[in-house]
């Protein structure tokens, strides 16, 4: 059972999250808070596993709260929720498992919860999250073989974080989302925000591994678990994390070729 704290200053937003989380098994909402200070107190008192944190709040903002929690041992996992421009969070270099946009679709919320679950299962004794992606990479590496030396493509992406930079191995990334100047690298256990252009990433990454499927999406071929054809030549991909993505009309040919459909 995962114990969840909801933090939002709008009563209706809290109610909506309660309804949405009730559809996901093994989740218990143990409390709610309507501002950053109350949230800080409840985190200490209730010790939740996961906090859904609204970014814009009275008193202490969600970001300030997350920053103050960064040093605490056994810090709960944090999923940020914001109404607009989640990439603004990158500027604060606050680590979070996921970044959601209001109104959050129930499916998207389920993906975020799954990611937290996986992350907690993989958490090592020291609770050091930074090594998790390496674990995932090692597991994946067994399946897919080591990249050949001297190849022209990057097999990892450097992402700035609070302590410096972390290298996110390409094989841990299920999909990449883009918005304006930012991209979100989605791994099974965490999302990384990075200032980069989609076209630049597309050039740097091996098209046999990571393929562009839409103006704002790239997916790792190994993460594709199914396809859907809702009709009229449209194509959707189902990924291992549960995401269901539309293939852009201009990218259909290359997706069909890459997946050998």
């Amino acid at each position: 059972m995962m114990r969840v704290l909801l933090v939002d200053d709008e009563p209706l937003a809290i109610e909506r999250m309660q309804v949405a989380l009730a559809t996901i098994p093994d989740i218990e909402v143990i409390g709610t808070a309507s501002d950053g200070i109350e949230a800080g107190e409840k985190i200490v008192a209730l010790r939740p596993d996961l906090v859904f944190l609204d970014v814009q709040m009275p008193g202490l903002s969600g970001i300030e709260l997350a920053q103050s929690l960064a040093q605490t041992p056994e810090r709960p996992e944090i999923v940020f929720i914001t109404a607009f421009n989640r990439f603004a969070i990158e500027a604060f270099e606050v680590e979070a498992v996921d970044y959601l946009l209001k109104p959050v679709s129930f499916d998207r919320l389920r993906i975020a919860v799954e990611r937290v679950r996986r992350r907690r299962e993989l958490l090592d004794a020291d609770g050091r999250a930074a090594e998790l992606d390496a674990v995932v990479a090692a597991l994946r590496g067994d399946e897919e073989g080591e990249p050949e030396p001297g190849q022209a493509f990057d097999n990892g992406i450097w992402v700035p974080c609070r302590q410096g930079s972390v290298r996110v191995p390409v094989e841990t990334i299920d999909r990449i989302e883009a918005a304006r100047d930012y991209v979100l690298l989605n791994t099974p256990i965490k999302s990384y925000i990075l200032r980069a252009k989609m076209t630049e990433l597309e050039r740097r990454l091996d098209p046999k591994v990571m393929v562009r499927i839409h103006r704002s999406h790239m997916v790792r071929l190994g993460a594709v678990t199914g396809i859907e054809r809702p009709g009229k030549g449209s194509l959707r991909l189902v990924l291992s994390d549960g995401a269901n993505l539309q293939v852009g009309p201009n990218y259909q040919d290359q997706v069909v070729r890459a997946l050998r459909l």
Partner: protein
Amino acid sequence: MRSIVPEQFRRREFLIAALLTVLLWAVALLLWCARDLVSGTVFPWPYKRLLIETFVLGMVFSAVLAAAIGLCRRLPRQAMVAVAAVAAIGIALLHGFIDAQSIAAINVELRLPPTPLIEIFYRGLMPFVLIYGLYATALGLMLSEMTVRESERRLVEARHATQQAQLAALRFQLNPHFLFNTLNAISSLIVTRRNEEAERMTMKLSEFLRLSLEADPDAEVMLDEELGNTQSYLEIEAVRFGDRLKTEFECPAELLGAWVPSFLLQPLVENSVKYAVAPSRKPVLLSVRASAAQGTLRLVVEDSGRQGVGLAPATGTGLGLDNVRKRLAAFYGAQASVEAQAKGRGFAVQLALPLRYARMQQAAE
């Protein structure tokens, strides 16, 4: 090469040059005839023919001169004057020479005592030099004045366009946070099966979106409408923030027909929501008041608290206040003013603008 002179402008130039040509040569013709008309002696036919020839040839040469001046109008001023002077003198000499030859021929025809061609040329040259010189000067002046006027016109147009663009940029812009938070709230009402509330909020949001999308940034609306817009915005925010937002409107009935720029108050109430209501745990009163004195309309937007929890009162106004200031200046110049000040724990903004009423029939609508 594409000319940057507009077609319509070139037609006007051509017309002016043509008119000037005909006028000048008609006057010249009249002056040449004057001596003989006054003395009452009738011209011999060859002279009449010569005058007609001179008139026609003058037109042709004038057209050539006009074309030369027109062609070099883009040159620097001194170069243009030099070209015009050389062309005018050259054409005057040429026309004078042709004229002298014609006179010599007529002399032979009328059996007058022969005069050397060069003497006839000298004697007749001066009018041509004067005519073509005058012609070139007048044409040059007109053209340069037209160019000046044209560039002035363009400058005015450019200024107008800039102002329009500024007003458009200063128009009320929908706050995306507001929009998505409201959609989130509506969705919440839906998933918690409060259909009627969801329906009411959807209607309020559509009304507000429609008003803001239809609003013309450089149009004025009646205060009645402006307060209505502000009210529908605040009603939506009231659903989101629950009992944290209290609102109060105060406007004498006779001021409801006064003109104000559309969505003028929006940035101010948005500021109050952002800096007073959102960061507060306690209820905040937001009041909008209108009053008039000595031909000035005063609008006040005031909130009762900017006390964030554990923080100093925020006095931030974002870009909103600056936007309102610029917009009022664009509409009313120095006749309008904006004053902002912290009041106790709250913040108040007072706008002053010229009081003008909508016409009665519009007010009645």
